[in-house]
């Protein structure tokens, strides 16, 4: 409702339901307003920089990359990222394989690493077409995947969450992790963009 310019807008069905449910939970003592606000704050404070930190470390440290691919959850905890209940599977882009993430059933997304998902990730268009015609959808994102590179679409349907480990761009030799992390965008960790120098 950013476009209402101060005019009165009736509440939508789901807004009304959210307010009613929240007020009831507070009234019954199940949660407090403070706890709800704290959770909203926490969700807003998580940004893709967290995921970028993981990718940059994997680029800089081959042993860490091995651990990340083996167990993404343990690798995040190792560098002090709190990722409650997240079962993270990192999938590695190589010269032979390009990975991309979608959740066809709803919009499962590694929020604790990438923050709030973009609207297009939740759209019916992306969710239905990314499994059906990934090459066309990737081209719409500006990513042309060569015919000799296999595309692996990961449909995030159950308890795992996925993070694409993009390829480290050429021309970044000798960069430290902090500088590398600046190249790692949200979209490159979903698989719909490539990091560029």
């Amino acid at each position: 409702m950013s476009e209402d310019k101060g005019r009165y807008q009736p509440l939508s069905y789901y807004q009304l339901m959210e307010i009613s449910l929240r007020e009831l939970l507070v009234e019954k003592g199940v949660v407090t307003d403070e706890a709800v606000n704290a959770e909203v704050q926490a969700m807003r404070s998580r940004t893709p920089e967290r995921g970028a930190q993981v990718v940059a470390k994997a680029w800089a440290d081959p042993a860490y990359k091995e651990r990340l691919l083996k167990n993404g959850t343990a690798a995040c905890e190792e560098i002090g990222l709190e990722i409650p209940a997240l079962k993270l599977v990192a999938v590695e882009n190589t010269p032979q394989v390009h990975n991309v993430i979608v959740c066809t059933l709803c919009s499962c997304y590694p929020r604790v690493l990438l923050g709030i998902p973009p609207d297009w990730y939740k759209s019916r268009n992306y969710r239905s077409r990314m499994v059906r015609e990934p090459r066309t959808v990737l081209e719409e994102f500006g990513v042309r995947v060569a015919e000799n590179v296999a595309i692996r679409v990961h449909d995030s349907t159950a308890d795992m969450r996925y993070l694409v480990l993009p390829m480290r761009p050429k021309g970044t030799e000798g960069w430290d992790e902090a500088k590398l992390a600046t190249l790692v965008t949200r979209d490159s960790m979903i698989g719909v963009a490539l990091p560029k120098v």
Partner: protein
Amino acid sequence: MQPQFVTRYAAALSPEFRTGEKVRVRKTAPLGHIRTPFYIRGHVGEIERLCGAFPNPEELAQMRDGLPAVPLYRVRFRQKDVWPDYRGPDADVVEIEIFQHWLEKA
């Protein structure tokens, strides 16, 4: 076969499939909250890895505990098998998490 994530629930079913094994997704349409997409039902793929054992989401949706936990696999399907008119190389795949009770030997 070692699962990628070790979970500890009071009860869990044993894994029945190995990495590399061919499996078919059951083609049924039960009611309720199902985490197996329609588009993959009836198709044959290959076990990519065992993720671990997790509470059955179909039971969780009914406010039950989902135990015994059910082995969850990532299954790899060739795009050309899933979509007969798929445009792209043979090597393109889609990988999906599927619970064991949705799979049978192919």
